[in-house]
């Protein structure tokens, strides 16, 4: 094991911790921006340090294709290659293959796929995934798992869960750098509590340095989503980091943190920036919207980032989707927003003000008190009283309105509550 996980503060299930990795001492809860090909689109590594990024996620599948893990290894590892002194995490590559390549197929041996280079059939085994990740050299590496969509039902879910357990042993056996890289196991089992329970137990028996909750953020309904997170976080060991893969939206991160999760990753903040959308406490702001062309306020008047301190919505509006600078500046703001959210979660837990933070967050996002029912349900399980920010009216009535687009005041902030 090459990490230390020390809990600094708790509120019921929520925890704030110090996660010491070979390259960086992190504070959790934390959000990891996705730097697919050894860079976060449009930002320099010093900008990422400036805005408080602690761990960058790299995609093994992409890095193995270009520049190849052998080259990265030869040049001294990914940290050195991209000049990133802080934490790195690589995924197993399996998920990317299954989601990006049409002809990927999973067998007991591994993930078979057609090479995007020459079209030849290829095989990624658990051993190979770990070997590649050993060469890339991230602080945290992920086990190859058998990924299935959460929306799929039936025996395939069970097969995938058991295969994930069989593969974890092959991953552990293949791992050559356990003293400077941490192998995380991934809990699978779809939306079935029995399968999830078997998987958690199986992985915990292996005494891994950390655990991920996989197979979520794939289109399942929100109530199923948070229940799986709640079940897994409750069953995972207290003294190990818990990473919810592919999450997500600011609201999801707040809910998962309340339920005891510590780490998140998602392409959403940078991807949505490239489409001209900014994350703001009220939800999202569509900078492409015509109303922005004469709006002289910053993107988020409460944001302290370089972009909000200097630029108006009107100026960003004339850049977005036309100039590279538009996505550079919006990505900067969006990542700043996510990293600030991580810091706020951490400090509010440490300072014993977590419920106040959650209420404040929900109040801004749902000023009419129309907090979605799934959030209320999750918060009840998390032991966070949010009645002060929920409207006294029957929620089911307002919930249907919340899903529609709203225009607030004169600045017509377009708020779309992420409801997927």
């Amino acid at each position: 094991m090459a990490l230390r996980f020390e809990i600094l503060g708790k509120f019921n299930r929520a925890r704030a911790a110090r996660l010491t990795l070979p390259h960086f001492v992190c504070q959790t809860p934390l959000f990891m921006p996705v730097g697919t090909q050894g860079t976060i689109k449009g930002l320099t590594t010093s900008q990422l340090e400036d805005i408080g990024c602690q761990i960058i996620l790299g995609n093994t599948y992409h890095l193995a294709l270009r520049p190849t893990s052998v080259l990265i290894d030869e040049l001294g590892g990914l940290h050195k290659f991209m000049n990133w002194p802080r934490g790195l995490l690589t995924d197993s590559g399996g998920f990317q293959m299954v989601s990006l390549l049409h002809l990927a197929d999973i067998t007991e041996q591994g993930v078979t796929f057609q090479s995007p280079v020459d079209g030849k059939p290829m095989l990624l085994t658990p051993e190979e995934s770990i070997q590649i990740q050993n060469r890339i050299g991230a602080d945290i590496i992920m086990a190859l798992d058998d990924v299935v969509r959460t929306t799929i039902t039936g025996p395939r879910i069970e097969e995938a869960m058991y295969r994930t357990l069989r593969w974890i042993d092959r991953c552990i056996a293949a791992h050559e750098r356990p003293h400077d890289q941490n192998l995380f196991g991934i809990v699978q089992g779809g939306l079935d509590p029995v399968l999830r329970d078997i998987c958690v137990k199986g992985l915990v028996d292996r005494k891994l340095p950390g655990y991920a909750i996989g197979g979520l953020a794939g289109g399942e309904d929100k109530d199923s989503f948070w229940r799986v997170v709640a079940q897994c976080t409750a069953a995972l060991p207290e003294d190990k980091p818990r990473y919810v893969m592919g999450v997500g939206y600011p609201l999801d991160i707040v809910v998962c943190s309340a339920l005891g999760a510590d780490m998140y990753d998602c392409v959403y903040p940078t991807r949505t920036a490239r489409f001209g959308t900014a994350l703001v406490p009220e939800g999202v702001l569509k900078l492409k919207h015509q109303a922005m062309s004469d709006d002289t306020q910053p993107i988020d008047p409460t944001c302290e980032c370089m972009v909000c301190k200097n630029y108006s919505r009107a100026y960003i509006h004339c850049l977005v989707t036309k100039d590279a600078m538009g996505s550079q500046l919006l990505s900067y703001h969006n990542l700043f927003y996510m990293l600030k959210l991580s810091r706020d979660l951490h400090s509010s837990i440490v300072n014993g003000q977590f419920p106040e933070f959650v209420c404040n967050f929900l109040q801004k996002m749902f000023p009419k008190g129309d907090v979605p029912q799934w959030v209320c349900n999750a918060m009840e399980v998390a032991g966070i009283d949010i009645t002060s920010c929920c409207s006294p009216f029957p929620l089911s009535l307002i919930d249907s309105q919340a899903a529609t687009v709203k225009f607030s005041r004169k600045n017509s902030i377009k708020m779309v509550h992420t409801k997927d």
Partner: protein
Amino acid sequence: MNFSVKALSKGGGRAGVLQVGGCSLETPALLLSTRKGLPAFISPDLLSTLPTPDSRLLQFSPLHFLEGISLKAVSEMGGLHQMLGLKEHVFVANPADPILSVPDYQSSNKIGASFETPSGRFLIKPGQYMEMISSMRPDIWVTLADEVPAWVSDKRNRVSIQRTMRWLDDCLALAKANDTGGAVFGSIIGGSKINDRKYCAQEVSRRNVEGFNIVGFGLGESMDERPTLLRAVTESLPEDKPRQISGLGLPEEVLQGVAAGVDLFNSTYIYHLTIGGFALTFPSEEIERHVSVDQLNDTIRDDGTKINLKATIYRKDTSRILEGCKCYTCQNHTKAYINHLFNVHEMLAQILLEIHNTYHYLGFFRKIRDTIREGTFEEFRQKFVESRREHAAPAAADNTDTDSAADNADTAALCA
């Protein structure tokens, strides 16, 4: 604005000081080309890693803002300095920009100049142009010109002079009537006709302008006829006012312009280099002092001024673009990493390259100023042009992909 010449070189080059917008800038200087007020890929926090005050001069076209933002909003925010959060920088407005706002002489007519932009073609009248200037409040603005290439007929050339002069008078009258601030640089055209060039320069000098904008170079005239044409213009101009030029961007062209007494240049060349994956590597003074001869010989591969980071030879090259370079990119990243970024089409490639190239080109201008002050500009110029020629010959013989691509970038810069 205030300008004074501090040193003259025997060939005609001059070193001066331009005081504008609270900045004191030494000339010859490079105006950084921008897209909507910011360098194409360098965000304001990274802009501050470039040397100051050298990097404070920013050129933009008011036409960049024809779509997407209202003049009223720009005006409400207090103009470009406020809108861009760059209060210390000096903004120079020029309607023509070889990338985003290209003059289209065939569509220009007596009422206005036509420009090809990403949002379509626009005919800009002096009145409209001055409204933009009033809202954006640049420190310096150039007057509207009917820019024509070298190959148009004599008749068309003279028409363009008439129009340009009329628009100059219109712009000045409107500026006076509306009390528009900023220093005015009168645009001088005249194509490749010496007499037309002289006439236009003399006429513009008679107007109440604070500087000059020499337009229509790099548009088909030959490298050989250019010095004579340039001199025809500069010799007709008063000594004590700054001269800006559009269309000369390559190092040799800049040296040619400086020798003819031009003070301000723009950096479109850097944009083309950056897009093409090229990094400037010719040795500058600062670097010569820190680097051994071996290393220098190494960097002088290709054509001696630049390398193409897209080339596969850099795949495993963990050295910096240029040893001794103090730019953000060279302080932090290797050729191998930038080569990878280009391979996978990541935007950071352009960001890092634009930083290095801008930093390096600003150093080239510093070197030019130093040699003028030291009285060695002519030697420096000759040495530079010769060493470039020497390297160009074997490079052409090698005929590698890199070299031909390098030539293409220059051609692109020349044609733009």
